[in-house]
């Protein structure tokens, strides 16, 4: 019996570090898209709390922590990142392999993202726990602020290489800029 | 006054004091045989051909601003006849023939330059469609050459052939295509129409269309009421408003198209080049500016100015296709108001109101159509039947589904053409 060897979306691409800023891949246990059916949001939120301890988030928000978190990704849609979930009352779609999950952390993280995303990343506008569906240059993505200088970016798996390229280029230019006298 | 090199020499020796006004500033008469609403390229061309082809000179062109102030004065000046579908094919072919005689016809140098248009393609599928289109052009009696990658390289060695995101497979070359000086077209037509007796009335905005018993009788304007036996509406992006004066709703949504020009540069681009994957087209003007554009801004607007994302997209397409122009500097950008139809093709037709005619829906292809549209619209107004080059530009085709001309194949959403 043969067995299939898994490969993560950024396996050949990450981690990397430029200008004291690191870009790394996170491979969660599972990513599950949870979309409550009509009138079932509360039920689903309760079920999620029971299953993994995080409630269904409000638009633009993340609930939970690193090991089990739930990020809003669209009207009536959230991704549970962590253990697999299957709450009743929701359309549940396994997306564990659908996204590249990239974290960027360090002094240039916010500046690098400000090269690529049109959203307002200022600290008091986009706080830890805030999340946004937006663009990473020409790609749709999800960006979540994890900490003062740490962000998590989700892009479609097939675009992992482009996403890493964009982040790398942004960081290199920032590094070059920092070296100007 | 006839223009020529000799005239320039003569006037130059006498202090250039002998040059005459290019057009009069007539006071509107109480009545005309024909009123053309709109003094843009198409309106002026209609007036010119009414006078020249049909001997109708008791004609007024009413322009709310200045002559040639609409899209004829803000476009990327491309002239071509390279359409795939019947209806468009014969129309643009006829228009190009008129272009080829326009300078002699008008005694005005509109700088029509047949420098060749090359439409690039980037996949086998695009090549096949380019071939279908090119064959349609030859079926129509126009010219087309299918270039492979090396053929394109010979003409356009400066394109990115090595590392392009969408590699160049080849191009459809239309040698008779080219460009012209846009303002000169309007001025030359205006001068010619004026010289035959047409009244060109500027700063005269039409505020109402008079209809009695289902028949048009004249117009209300900011300079008073003017009676007319026939009225033609040729107002491009403003078609919706003017048609509404006659109680009509049109299959048109007005959108913004931006265009761009760089500072003057020594010659680098000889042809008109279009980049299918990037919705980008470029040529270099005789003054040296690179003139280029892209897609619509995509939302309904009358603002005649664009937004940044599309401008950036156009610059990105430029850098992707021909990175050698990176150090050129954008000098000016502007926006025109495009009268978009559900199939991307125009309308030259009668309306349900007797004596009222409409010429609209040129989307962003109106410049090259200027003489053809004027010729066909003049014919329609004068003879009350369509010219053979424009029989398919029917107002009711969307309702009936007969003879749709959706060159892009994007369907009945106005902004997608």
């Amino acid at each position: 019996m043969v067995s299939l060897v898994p490969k993560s979306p950024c396996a050949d691409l990450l981690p990397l570090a430029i200008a004291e800023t690191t870009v790394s891949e996170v491979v969660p246990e599972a990513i599950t898209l949870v979309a409550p059916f009509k009138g079932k949001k509360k039920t689903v939120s309760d079920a999620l709390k029971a299953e993994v301890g995080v409630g269904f988030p409000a638009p633009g928000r993340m609930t939970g922590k690193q090991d089990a978190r739930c990020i809003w990704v669209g009207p009536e849609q959230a991704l549970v990142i962590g253990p697999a979930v299957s709450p009743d009352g929701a359309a549940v779609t396994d997306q564990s392999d659908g996204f590249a999950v990239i974290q960027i952390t360090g002094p240039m993280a916010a500046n690098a993202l400000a090269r690529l995303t049109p959203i307002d990343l200022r600290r008091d506008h986009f706080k830890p726990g805030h999340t946004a569906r937006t663009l990473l240059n020409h790609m749709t993505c999800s960006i979540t602020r994890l900490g003062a200088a740490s962000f998590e970016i989700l892009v479609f798996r097939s675009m992992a290489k482009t996403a890493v390229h964009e982040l790398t280029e942004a960081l290199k230019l920032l590094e070059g800029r920092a070296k100007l006298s | 006054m006839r223009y020529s090199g000799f005239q320039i020499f003569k006037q130059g020796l006498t202090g250039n004091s002998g040059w005459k006004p290019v057009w009069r500033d007539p006071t509107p008469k109480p009545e005309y045989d024909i009123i053309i609403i709109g003094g843009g390229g198409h309106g002026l061309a209609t007036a010119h051909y009414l006078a020249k082809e049909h001997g109708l000179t008791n004609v007024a062109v009413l322009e709310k601003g200045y002559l040639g102030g609409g899209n004829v004065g803000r476009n990327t000046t491309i002239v071509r006849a390279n359409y795939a579908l019947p209806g468009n094919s014969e129309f643009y072919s006829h228009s190009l023939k008129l272009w080829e005689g326009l300078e002699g016809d008008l005694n005005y140098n509109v700088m029509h330059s047949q420098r060749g248009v090359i439409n690039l393609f980037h996949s086998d599928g695009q090549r096949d469609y380019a071939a279908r289109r090119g064959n349609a052009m030859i079926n129509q009696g126009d010219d087309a050459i299918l270039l492979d990658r090396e053929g394109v390289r010979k003409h356009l060695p400066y394109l990115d052939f090595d590392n392009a995101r969408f590699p160049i497979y080849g191009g459809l070359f239309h040698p008779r295509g080219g460009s012209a000086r846009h303002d000169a077209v309007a001025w030359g037509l205006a001068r010619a129409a004026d010289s035959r007796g047409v009244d060109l009335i500027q700063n005269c905005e039409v505020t109402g269309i008079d209809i009695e018993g289902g028949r048009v009788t004249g117009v209300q304007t900011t300079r008073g009421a003017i009676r007319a036996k026939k009225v033609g509406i040729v107002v491009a992006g403003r078609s919706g408003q003017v048609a509404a004066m006659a109680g009509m709703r049109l299959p048109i949504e007005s959108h913004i198209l931006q265009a761009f020009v760089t500072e003057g540069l020594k010659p680098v681009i000889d042809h008109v080049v279009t980049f299918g994957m990037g919705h980008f087209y470029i040529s270099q003007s005789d003054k040296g500016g690179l003139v280029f554009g892209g897609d619509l801004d995509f939302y309904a607007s009358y603002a005649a100015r664009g937004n940044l994302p599309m401008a950036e997209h156009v610059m990105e397409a430029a850098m992707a296709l021909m990175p050698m122009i990176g150090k050129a500097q954008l000098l000016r950008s502007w926006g025109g108001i495009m009268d978009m139809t559900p199939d991307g093709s125009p309308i030259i037709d009668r309306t349900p109101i007797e004596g009222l005619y409409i010429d609209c829906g040129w989307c962003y292809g109106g410049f090259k159509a200027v003489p053809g549209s004027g010729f066909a619209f003049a014919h329609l107004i004068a003879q009350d039947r369509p010219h053979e080059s424009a029989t398919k530009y029917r107002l009711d085709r969307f309702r009936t589904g007969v003879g749709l001309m959706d060159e892009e194949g994007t369907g009945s959403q106005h902004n997608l053409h």
Partner: protein
Amino acid sequence: MRLDRSGGDVAPSLSFTFDGETVRARKGETVAAALLANDIRLVGRSFKYHRPRGIWSAGPEEPNALITLGRGAAQTPNQRATVQEVYEGLEVSSQNRWPSLKTDLLSVNDLAAPFLGAGFYYKTFMWPRAFWERVYEPVIRRAAGLGALSGAPDQEPYEKAYAHCDLLVIGSGPSGLMAALVAARAGSDVIVAEQDHALGGRLLAEVEEIDGAPAADWVAAAVAELEAAPNVRVMSRTTVTGVYDQGTYGAIERTAMHVADPGAAPRQTFWRIVAKASILASGAIERGIAFANNDRPGVMAAGAVRAYANRWGVSPGKSVTVFANNDDAHRTARDLAAAGVTVAAVIDPRADAQAIGDYPLFSGAQVTGTTGRLGLTDITIRDASGKDQSVWTDCLAVSGGWNPSVHLTCHMNGRPVWNEDLAAFVPAPDAVPGLFPAGSADGAQSTADCLRTGAEAAIAALEALGQTTEAPALPKAENGFTGHTPFWLVPGKKRAWLDMANDVTVKDVKLAAQENFASVEHMKRYTTQGMAPDQGKNSNVAALAILADATGRTIPQTGTTTFRPPFAPVPLSAMGAGARGKGFAPERFTTSHTATEDLGAPFVEAGLWYRPSYYPRAGETTWRQSCDREVQMVRNAVGVADVSTLGKIDIQGPDAAALLDFVYTNMFSTLKVGKVRYGLMLREDGHVMDDGTTARLGETHYVMTTTTAAAGQVMQHLDFVLQALRPDWDVRIASATEQWAQFAVAGPKARALLDVVLDGPIDWAAWPFMSCGNIGVAGVPGRLFRISFSGEEGFEVAVPARYGEALYRLLLSQASVLGGGPYGMEALNVLRIEKGFITHSEIHGRVTAFDIGMERMISAKKDCIGKTMAARPGLLDPARERLVGLKPTGAVKELTAGAHLFNMGAEAVRLEDQGYITSVCYSPTLGSFLGLGFLKSGPDRIGETVQMVDHLRGVKTEVEVCNPVFFDPEGGRMRG
């Protein structure tokens, strides 16, 4: 020449070259300052007449001193010498001259000027017709243009970035600094954008005191405060170039244009700044006066002369004269005299003008002419009594007053308003929502006014943002030098320049009026005034005044042309940063990409995806050989293809079936669980949008497959239907395209291959054609669909994408044992044409279900998107071009896609056109070329012979019209 100033001036420490000659310069200087310091006045040649030109201004509005930087691929044309900072080793070249700047052959144009007036080219070059493209135009093109591109790709780094703030302050002169200070102290989030490398604006160029100390001290303190404030971001070398809707601003930062070795830093950065409010403190631009030969090197803007003297310690001349209609310009004489420069004369047309220092003043006088071939040597002064006298001078400082920099207020169609007192246009109120003009941009005349209006604008802006701020104590500052009388031109017969950049003279504007190009837009377009690199910043108002005079109207009656973005030129490489090469669009890779690369397969672009074209094997020299082999491999053994790029949409919910019935023409509510059905999707206008198979995985769970090209469009369409048309339905949709790696396994040995790979044993009887279900794939939970796009017994096997590469490699290794292997897009295309299966080559957006013979798939039992409009009479005309199969029967056995069809014996012209070919292939299975195409009344003409003509490729043949399903029309192979 350099002035010998006490204080901080350092000796020139670096050198650069100008047309190959070494020039010594100080760090921080502009090229213009350094050239003037070295007594170089001749910098370029004019656009049309190739007149010698020097430096007019000290800022980005410079019309004359355009230079080229660098060489080779780094060659950068049309840079302003008045903006570019010097650095060690900088190479500067002059432009638009041949063979040299001093001896330019095309300066012969200047002699022919009487024949080259405004618009002369519209009146000639018409005969003989063919000469335009061949003779006249090439000559004109070569003569036109300014600098030259190198022709090499621009490979230097550039970037684009976003910034957000509460208040954007545009400009950092006294009003900008004051506004920024007020907002910063109020705790507002502020960005200050300044085009110069140093903040301070005119305060850097004037000798003034603020609060009893040199203005520069106040500037330094203000800058220090702003730079220290955590809520302020100072962006120097950054010019705001455009104003867009809802507080969006474009800006260009010359990030690393001032350093010799920029390394990896972006040369320039294009910013998109989003601000809740902004202060327009962009200052004013000095205007000239039109008089005979006022364009010579050495004739300069008076304020610029002060800037060179006061800021850089450079005098543009040894003997300076001033010609001005205002008090402000008298400061030029005062400052230069104080610096020890000879001031030969101040000529002021105002009879009551007063001197403010020790210099010879000619009040009520005018400058009527200049001399000096390559640079100014003398001017002629006509004094109040009408007597002419010549004065030796190498620098004439000219001022006709100041024009507020209203440009940005025009970007949203605002029309500036004529202010008679100022004799200038000022911003229209509320021209841009949220933009508050201040300082001289709003017509303020003195430093004191600038400081006051800057503070007021900031307070107003903050109030608009809901923040109340106390008015600050204003610093005490200069409040004089405001007297002026409008004065546009000195009458005369010789040419007097208005638009130096485009060589437009007073005569040209008058000629335009004479020829009735009386609208200001007509004048501009006819003369080209205002269309040069400075976009009329220096000349618009004067030209307008002259046009108004020539047409007997006032300036407000005459109106203005408008300013449009960008305010300052932006390199395409900055605004298009990141798009070179592969950066133009995201790249999408399948999980099998690496394995496919390992096999040497060339890739083709499919939308944003890359898919393999074919898999060459040893001995194969053409793609056709590989393709033929792959087709036969699928027909005789088994082939494997990655089909993951097709869109997969997960559809769940009680109303999932209703949604599918509504978006597809055919029924899906009747589909049984565990089954797959082909569906046809229309646009609402009745034309085909897409097609694909949809599987029912559970009672309320479907997975829809779209074509690769239409995946995004279909997803958006479903979103639209659910949100906008049927929000009552309880359905949730999700794109699952990326979750699954999916492979087609097709051929007589498909089962044999799957037997090895799937967790078995498999009861194949339970997997009839068009069935689907969950299944273990090498120990991993996967899905199996029995569907076929090849006409063979076929399956698609899907696993979570992390296993995609491993499964692909496994399938290939096991396939090879069975005589099978991978097949690419070319073979896939042949297989589907043999079967008459359509792709977007056929459903190209203009075809209906009727056209492709699928009208019966539009269910009569229900409504669906597109059904009503598909029934329009024009879309059901039997004579429409409809899908047929085509086979060559003539002497030429080839078909070409894009060829047109004609009846036998008909001429190949439009009126005879019967249709066209959309897809062709060589079928190794049937040993013939096959084609799919659209033919008028096609299905009624099966068996007929028509001609195919491809003019472009020179192919002409006879073809037989046949059923589009060429191979196994009964479908027995597929059903197994």
